[in-house]
């Protein structure tokens, strides 16, 4: 009997060991696949979700009366590095201090995994209440009816003054299923990102060249090329040490020249126009023919950004978020308008944006909206954001007032505002749901950047292929 007992206890210990091993084994299996990590995250959040549901039923009565003081718990999900995380954590802490009954749970996901995680949560019906969305993904979310229509809340709460927010920023989050900028509002801008051209003043001074103009249309491709040729310098080994320009934006060139990738109203890919070919050829020639810009090979070795901060590039694109990185540079710099096409005399550039959206099935539509409005437009947070060099304020009066007066580089901040108000355009992807066509274009375009094919040849071959991919994914 004694022996049996001992055996028994041994066995139970063994069984427990095996069981726990089995469980941990499964758990780590689950973590192995890239996609599965998101699942684990989903499970982790299940607990709070359940808690929330219970709370929801408890306070249902109170909710019906006045929701301003009712308790709620909002899940907010975003991405970003350590800086962004710290900024938002502080904003949220302030928010919770201001409204003690409103709890906010903030989750940060690495940027590369964000949409994977979001889509998995949506598929599992655990959509966060407030979250980031932008570009093609925003369109997809609206089309599959996942986002809350904010029109009535804007009206009833008065938390957003549409006249004091960039039109370009709000319009990006209006979508009627076909055209961006038309229809109901489904999001509020987190920021608008005007893509301007930074230039190294010291290099221009050394070469005795005038600075590029801050006014759109005054400085053309020809001026830019002539300057770049004087600014490009070789080293002793015969390799180019300093380039005139890098990262010359294909979007800016094509749009400025009167072309475009696609006509979203008809769904026709329009890369096979002469305007497009001319612009693309010019962009490719900068590296291959004129040798004033790093070729893809050069970029691979050291990218334009690293070269610019090392003082080895005279002209380089930048967004407002690059400011903190550029503040400590040992040379003087400023921003200018994008060079204009000599043919049309016009210029255009890329205006990025990311938005806060509210999940359609949130338990607290009003509170979720209030949080989104706070994060998007609160004066203190907007001020802090631009002072940290993260963004241009979303509030027009603030941007045109104190933001312009700020005594840090770039001096000509007006360029950012011109882009937002005048010649900035949404990235090409805004308007599509599925981006395989655009990714394929970018990948295949290397044949032009390396000089294997002329732009005209390549675009003619590429058009039918992209049209097919676009139709498959978006119609």
């Amino acid at each position, binding site marked *: 009997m004694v022996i049996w007992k001992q055996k028994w206890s041994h*066995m139970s210990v063994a069984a427990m060991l095996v*069981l726990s091993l089995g469980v941990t084994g499964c758990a780590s299996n689950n973590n192995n696949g890239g996609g599965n990590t998101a699942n684990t995250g989903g499970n982790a959040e299940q607990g709070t979700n359940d808690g929330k549901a219970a709370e929801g039923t408890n306070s249902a009565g109170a909710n019906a009366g006045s929701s301003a003081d009712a308790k709620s718990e909002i899940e907010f999900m975003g991405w970003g590095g350590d800086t962004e995380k710290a900024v938002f954590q502080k904003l949220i802490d302030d928010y919770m201090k201001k409204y003690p009954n409103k709890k906010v749970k903030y989750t940060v996901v690495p940027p590369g995994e964000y949409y994977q995680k979001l889509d998995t949560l949506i598929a599992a019906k655990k959509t966060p209440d407030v979250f980031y969305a932008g570009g093609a993904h925003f369109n997809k979310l609206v089309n599959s009816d996942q986002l809350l229509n904010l029109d009535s809340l804007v009206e009833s709460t008065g938390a957003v003054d549409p006249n004091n927010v960039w039109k370009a920023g709000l319009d990006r989050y209006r979508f009627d299923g076909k055209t961006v900028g038309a229809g109901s509002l489904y999001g509020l801008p987190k920021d608008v990102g005007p893509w301007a051209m930074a230039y190294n003043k010291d290099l221009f001074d050394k070469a005795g060249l005038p600075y590029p103009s801050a006014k759109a249309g005054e400085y053309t491709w020809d001026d830019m090329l002539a300057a770049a040729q004087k600014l490009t310098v070789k080293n002793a080994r015969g390799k180019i040490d300093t380039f005139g320009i890098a990262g010359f934006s294909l979007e800016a060139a094509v749009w400025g020249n009167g072309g475009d990738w696609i006509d979203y109203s008809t769904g026709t890919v329009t890369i096979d126009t002469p305007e497009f070919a001319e612009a693309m050829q010019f962009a490719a020639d900068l590296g291959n023919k004129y040798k004033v810009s790093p070729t893809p090979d050069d970029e691979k070795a050291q990218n334009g950004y690293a070269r610019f901060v090392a003082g080895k590039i005279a002209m380089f694109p930048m967004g407002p978020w690059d400011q903190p990185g550029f503040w400590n540079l040992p040379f003087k710099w400023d921003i200018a308008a994008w060079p204009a096409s000599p043919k049309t005399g016009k210029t255009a550039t890329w205006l990025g944006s990311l938005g806060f959206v509210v999940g359609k099935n949130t338990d607290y539509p009003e509170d979720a909206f209030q949080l989104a409005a706070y994060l998007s437009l609160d004066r203190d947070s907007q001020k802090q954001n631009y002072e940290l060099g993260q963004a241009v304020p979303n509030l027009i009066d603030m941007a045109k007032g104190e933001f312009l007066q700020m005594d840090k580089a770039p001096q000509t901040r007006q360029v950012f505002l011109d882009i937002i108000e005048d010649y900035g355009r949404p990235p090409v992807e805004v308007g599509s749901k599925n981006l395989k066509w655009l990714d394929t274009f970018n990948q295949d375009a290397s044949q032009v950047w390396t000089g294997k094919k002329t732009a005209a040849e390549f675009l003619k071959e590429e058009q039918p292929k992209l049209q097919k991919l676009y139709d498959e994914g978006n119609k």
Partner: protein
Amino acid sequence: MKKKTTGFRRKEMLWSLAFVAPPVLGFLIFGLAPLLTSFGLSFMSWDMMTPAKFVGADNFVKMAEDEKFYKALYNTFYLLLGIPLGMIVALVLAMMMNRPLKGISIFRTIYYIPVVSPIIAISLLWQWLLNYDYGIINEFIWRIFGVQGPNWLGDPNWVKPSFLMLGLWGGVGGTMVLYLAGLQGISSTYYEAAEVDGASRWHQFRHITLPLLSPIHFFVVVMGIIGTFQAFSQMYILTPDGGPEYSGGTIVFYIFQEAFKYFNMGYASAVAWVLGILIFIVTLIQFRFSKRWVYQD
């Protein structure tokens, strides 16, 4: 007495079930369920948000005319070259390591280190080694031959050779250890007899060493093919967008992109099933042919 044994047996049965349950449940939940789901999904169109739609064989029809699918297939088959390459190098190394020298185990360990390093770390390391301007490989080529080395990860013609190099470096240690074990299992009597008969070193290698290692060749080939068909991590790190002109995209990489970048879950499942069937057929053929050349004692 009899009653007691049945109770005991019952308990024993329950216990055995408890012991078996974790792996069985694990398999059912994490193995079989996804397997069946993906089979079903391969006949559907699903973006994870809107409900899945049954589309019949559409996914497979689309695959038959999908340029990128063929490119990924070609890339994957190209990488199979790494298997014979790895076997030759590993065998040479194993024979060099199979000598009773002082400190030989240190050398064996050195060659084995890459095998225990995570593939992500290896990929990041090679990203630097292969850098066009500053990489140690091109620096070496410049110092020795005075010419600029290729743009390893930027030129569509060199991306796959780069992967082969990386695979060789990372995998040769494991194969070497297998061969080492095989070599030590060959009885010296064979060589003694051959020497008495006047066989040269080459003949000894050709007619004794190689055939007696055939079970190991077989194992390495089978595992190598399966591993190559499943290659993913290196590509994900070194050519995150598939590389110039998709020269680095393998099948699994393509499946991943379709599933988690474009959210075409149905199509990705269909490609995954084609890959699974492909691996199955190739492995089956290998086992059939193995009877002809693998020596089993």
